[in-house]
């Protein structure tokens, strides 16, 4: 009896320790989307201008050949109401990764096009937060680079028309971006059909769940999947209860009820 007890304790503790280390590794290196959501792009350089960045010593030498074109991109970005600091962030990122100037320019052109699309989509819906748009645009751009479609972004923003409690564009767009990153983080682990993903995003945007709690759904999906539920059923469950005004407690309770067998 004592031998089995000792074995049980040893095996359980060793196994849980291994799982904890693996999970920590997994969290630190594989959960890019959640990390990206938790840590938006660096803003320390947001107020640096392109002229100042290229005026630096090393950067001027390595990337001086693309300075004029980058300044032109920044001008175009300015017409969309976005600051050139967004491009400076990418310049810093590219130079730190030692990306050649020509390749970096291509990436900057892509980024500018993405940011302009984001600004257009926000403006068309009266959701462009003047003076506060750079951070949101950077976050949205990150999601588009992670695989989000522009149409999905636009559809999610359309749902905010029903968010009557939120008066200004900033909290509405922040809620949408958090819902999008949560859905993408779930999709990255447990692939969802496009239609289900869109319904999930809309349900989250319109739910009573505080956006700070959206991330918990990734954990909830992991629990449901590890207990044998399919992701489409999990998704249907969350959509249904989030749409009917349920809180996280209620959704968790419903999940537990389905996992438990009589």
């Amino acid at each position, binding site marked *: 009896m004592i031998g089995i007890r000792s074995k049980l304790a040893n095996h359980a503790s060793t196994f849980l320790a291994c799982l904890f280390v693996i999970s920590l590794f997994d969290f630190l290196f594989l959960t890019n989307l959640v990390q990206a959501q938790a840590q938006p792009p660096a803003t320390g350089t947001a107020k640096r201008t392109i002229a100042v960045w290229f005026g630096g010593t090393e950067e001027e030498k390595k990337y001086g050949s693309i300075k004029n074109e980058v300044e032109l991109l920044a001008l175009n970005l300015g017409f969309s109401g976005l600051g050139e600091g967004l491009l400076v962030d990418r310049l810093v990122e590219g130079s730190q990764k030692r990306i050649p100037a020509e390749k970096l320019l291509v990436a900057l052109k892509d980024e500018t096009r993405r940011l302009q699309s984001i600004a257009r989509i926000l403006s068309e819906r009266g959701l462009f937060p003047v003076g506060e748009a750079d951070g949101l645009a950077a976050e949205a751009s990150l999601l588009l680079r992670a695989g989000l479609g522009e149409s999905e972004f636009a559809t999610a923003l359309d749902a905010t028309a029903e968010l009557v409690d939120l008066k200004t564009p900033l909290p509405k767009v922040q809620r949408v971006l958090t819902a999008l990153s949560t859905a993408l983080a779930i999709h990255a682990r447990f692939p969802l059909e496009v239609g289900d993903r869109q319904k999930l995003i809309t349900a989250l945007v319109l739910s009573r769940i505080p956006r700070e709690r959206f991330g*918990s759904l990734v954990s909830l999906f992991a629990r449901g999947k*590890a207990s*044998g539920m*399919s992701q489409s059923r999990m998704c249907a469950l969350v959509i249904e209860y989030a749409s009917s005004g349920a809180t996280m407690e209620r959704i968790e309770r419903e999940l537990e009820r389905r996992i438990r067998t009589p």
Partner: protein
Amino acid sequence: MIHTPVHALSFLISVSLFGAPGLSALEISAAAGSAWSSDSGPALEAGAAIGDEFFGRVFSARYAGEGSAAWYFGDATPGMTTTASDGFYGDALASAEFSALTGPLSNLVKVYGKLESPYPASSVGAVVDSVPIYSAGASLAFVLNTFDFSVSLEPRLSWQSGNSGGKELGLNSGGSFLAGEFLVKPGADLAWMEWDDGSESLSLRPGLGFSWYPGFPFSVSADSGLTRTWLPDGTTSDELPFRASFYAALGTSILVKAAVELGIALPDAEVVSAFGSTEVSFTLGRFGRVGEGDGESTWSGELRLPCHFTLDLDDGWSAGVGLEVAFD
């Protein structure tokens, strides 16, 4: 979601009972594998399950059925008091739930039935006590959900046949609220039990549980409480049960589930029951068909390789590996 004759039948039942459902989620799975345990030796196992759920505007319904069978090749078969050279063991479970959601208050009616039937192999071994065990139950839940907390009251009635059979009448009350990333769940359970041999008991279990959902694919739940049991002769016994479970998704294809359960008798703090289990499931492949528009056939499936290991204070250890295919 599957668009098959089974799904069509489910859809019709739902429509006839509850009107047009908003969403439905059908799942079908089948599994087969081998296992080895210190108690009963090698075995082959197979099982299948089906479940469907309909969400209407006010009413929702869920039903599930599953069955499993195992062939033991060792010297003993679970549930049998004499040795059999080999044997067959099977069980079947059916359950149904109906719930109504009206504003913050929801009501839930749940009924279930279960059959566990150990049978001897047709021509090998003499087996006694291979009588099937039936169990059934029903519960009614009243749940009040507010923005800050949730409370519930759930009376239940259950019955089980067999040597350790009897009736149970219980009342569970509980609540839950968020504290940071933790969901805290205080609760209490009162149960009166009458066994078929005439003995009775009354037990009360106040307890506290929590779940942690940190925002990445990892989750921990644990609960404990003090169970006091009163017997008709006036004696009482106290036990401290403890349960903890852990869930994680590693990468895109590995799912992990681990659980530990302990029963500690008081006041001597003696461990009277201990159980630990782990399951690691590898997703070998995903397949399916996505329709182009609404109403078009859409289904998906997964092929998984689940591996499990359990340790039990009374039954020893068991380990198994198999293949599971699931459609939804």
